[in-house]
C-alpha cells in the first residue's frame, strides 16, 4: 500500500515538475476544439488540444466483496467445505482490495487525430478463508493473498469523424482504434500461502496483472455540449482473439459509459456517469492448472478446484455502475478529479467476488508544445490580408 502511494506521488511530482517550463509559454488562449469538459476515468474520453501533450496520473482504489452468483449474494462460509461436494472449496476469498496507479500520455497531431498511451501499476490483496481441514492443517483461519506489478500497456488513436464547429463543437463523433500490449504479468505465483506446497504455484486469474495477449481496442465516442452542461456516450470493445502463454484468453469485453457534467463554477464542475461493463468468461484454465494441477486438490488436474477463483467459468458477467464526482482546476492547464463509483446492477457468472465500491483520483496537465496554438496563438487569417 505504502509502495503504491509512494509511486503515485513520485509520478505525480515528476509530472508536475516536468511540465512547469512549458506553462510559461501559455499565451492565455482558449480553444475548445477537443470539445471541452469530459471525464478523466473513461479511456479515450478526452484528448489534448492540437500539438499539445496531456499527461495524466491517477490513483484508484476498489473494494470487492461479497460473493455473488447471478444477481444473488453468496456468503464465503457457504462455499467452504469438502471439495468433492458440489460447489464446496478448501479456500475462498471474503474480500479483495485493489490499488491501481495509472499514467497516460496523449498527444494531438491535428485537430482530428490524437494518440494516447497508458499503463498502470497494480497492487492486489485478497483475504482468503480456509475450510475446517485447511484450518486444522495450517493452524490459521486463512491468509491474505497478494500480487503486484505493471498492468498492460495500451496505445489508442482517436480520430474525429464529425464536429459541427471548429472553435467549440457542440456535437462531435470520434472513432477509437487501439491495441493493448501484454506487459502485465500472467505468471504471478503464490508467495505467502500457509498451505504446504502451494507457494510458487500459479495464482488465480484476478491476481494476474494483465491479459497476456495483444488485444485490439475499438470504440466510438459521442460528445455534446450545451454550456454549462456536457454530455457524452463512449462505447469501447476490447477483443480477446488469441491465447496467451498460459494457453487461455480473457473474455471479450465491452464498456459503454454515459456521462453528464454540470459546470457550476468557471473552475469546477460536477459529473455523474452510468458505466455499463460486460465481460465474457475466461476461455480455459491456464496451462499451470491443466498440466501441473495448480489450483486443484492434491495438484491433480482432474480433481476439483481448491477455490472458486481457479474456475474460468466463474468470471465475467454484466454490471452497471453509477459514478459521481467533481473536477476542479487549481491552476491553468491543470485539472484534478475525484470520483466515487458503486454498482447498481451486477449479474455475474459465479460465484465470484462482486464489486462493492471504488474511488478514483485523477490529475492531468496540458503541455503546449511550440507548435501549439496556446504557445504561438492562432494564425492571422490570410483571407483578411494577414
Amino acid at each position, binding site marked *: 500500500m505504502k509502495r503504491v502511494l509512494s509511486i503515485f506521488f513520485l509520478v505525480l*511530482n515528476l509530472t508536475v515538475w516536468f511540465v512547469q517550463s512549458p506553462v510559461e509559454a501559455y499565451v492565455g488562449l482558449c480553444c475548445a476544439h477537443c470539445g471541452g469538459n469530459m471525464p478523466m476515468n473513461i479511456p479515450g474520453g478526452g484528448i489534448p488540444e492540437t500539438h499539445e501533450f496531456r499527461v495524466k496520473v491517477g490513483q484508484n482504489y476498489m473494494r470487492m466483496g461479497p460473493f455473488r452468483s447471478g444477481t444473488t449474494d453468496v456468503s464465503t462460509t457457504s462455499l467452504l467445505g469438502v471439495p468433492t461436494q458440489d460447489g464446496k472449496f478448501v479456500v475462498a476469498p471474503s474480500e479483495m482490495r485493489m490499488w491501481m496507479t495509472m499514467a497516460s500520455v496523449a498527444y494531438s497531431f491535428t485537430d482530428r487525430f490524437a494518440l494516447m498511451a497508458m499503463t498502470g501499476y497494480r497492487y492486489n490483496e485478497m483475504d482468503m478463508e480456509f475450510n475446517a481441514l485447511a484450518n486444522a492443517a495450517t493452524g490459521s483461519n486463512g491468509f491474505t493473498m497478494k500480487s503486484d506489478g505493471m498492468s498492460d500497456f495500451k496505445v489508442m488513436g482517436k480520430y474525429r469523424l464529425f464536429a459541427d464547429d471548429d472553435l467549440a463543437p457542440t456535437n462531435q463523433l470520434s472513432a477509437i482504434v487501439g491495441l493493448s500490449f501484454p506487459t502485465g504479468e500472467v505468471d504471478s505465483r503464490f508467495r505467502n500461502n500457509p498451505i504446504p506446497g502451494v507457494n510458487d504455484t500459479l495464482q488465480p486469474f484476478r491476481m494476474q496483472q494483465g491479459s497476456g495477449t495483444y488485444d485490439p481496442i475499438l470504440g466510438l465516442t459521442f460528445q455534446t455540449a450545451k454550456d454549462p452542461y456536457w454530455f457524452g456516450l463512449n462505447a469501447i470493445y476490447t477483443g480477446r482473439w488469441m491465447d496467451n502463454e498460459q494457453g487461455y484468453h480473457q473474455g471479450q469485453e465491452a464498456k459503454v459509459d454515459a456521462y453528464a457534467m454540470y459546470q457550476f463554477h468557471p473552475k469546477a464542475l460536477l459529473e455523474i456517469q452510468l458505466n455499463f461493463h460486460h465481460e465474457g468468461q475466461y476461455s480455459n484454465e491456464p496451462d499451470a492448472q491443466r498440466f501441473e494441477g495448480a489450483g486443484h486438490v492434491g495438484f491433480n488436474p482432474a480433481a476439483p478446484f481448491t477455490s472458486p477463483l481457479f474456475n474460468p467459468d466463474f468470471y465475467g458477467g454484466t454490471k452497471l455502475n453509477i459514478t459521481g464526482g467533481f473536477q476542479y482546476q487549481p491552476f491553468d492547464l491543470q485539472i484534478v478529479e475525484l470520483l466515487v463509483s458503486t454498482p447498481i446492477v451486477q449479474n455475474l457468472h459465479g460465484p465470484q467476488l462482486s464489486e462493492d465500491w471504488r474511488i478514483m483520483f485523477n490529475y492531468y496537465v496540458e503541455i503546449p508544445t511550440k507548435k501549439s496554438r496556446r504557445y504561438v496563438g492562432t494564425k492571422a487569417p490570410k483571407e483578411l490580408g494577414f
Partner: protein
Amino acid sequence: MKTPWVSRLSIIFIAIYIVLIPSFIWAQSEFSANLGIVEPRTIKQAPDFALQTLDGQTVKLSDFKGKPVLLNFWATWCEACKKEFPAMQRLYSHLKDDGFEIIAVSVDRRNRDRIEEFVKAYGIDFPILLDPQQKARRDYFIRGLPTSYLIDSAGDLRGFISGARAWDHIASRKALLNIFKNVRLSKVTNPAIK
C-alpha cells in the same frame, strides 16, 4: 525509520516546484505585456456586421467609422478572455476621450444572463455585442479566444492579436500607438497612466 527513495525524490520535486512557480508567473506576465500584434500584408476593410447589444439595440461595425477600434472576440466560458477584461476596461477608460473605441463581441450561443452578470460585475462600459449565431465570428476566422483585431478610423484592418494581453501595460499602449500612427492618442505615451 529509513525514508523510501521514492518519498525522498517526491520531497525534492515538491521543493523545486515551489521555488519555480514565482518565476513562471513572472515570465507569463511579461509575455502577455507584449502585444504581439500581427500586421497585415495587404490592407483590407474589416468585414462589417450588425449585432445586438445587451439592451437589444442593433449596432454595426461601420457605425464606428472615424474612430480607431479594438475589436475583441470573447466568451463567458473562456477564462483567459475574462482575465483580460479589467485591463481592457482600464485602457478604454483612459483613451475613450481620444476617440478610441473597444467593441467586445461575445460568441456565447446562450447564457445571456451570464454575460450581463459579468459586464455588471466588472463595470464594463464599452459596447458588448452578441453573436449567438457565430456569424461575425466566422467572418473574422476566429479559431481561439480571445482574439482581437485593430481597425483604424477608415475601417481598415491594421492588426491581429491572438490570446489575452495586458492591455493597460505601457508596452501594450506603445504598441497600439505604433499601429494607430495617424491617430491622436496622447495618453498612450504617458507612462503615468496605469
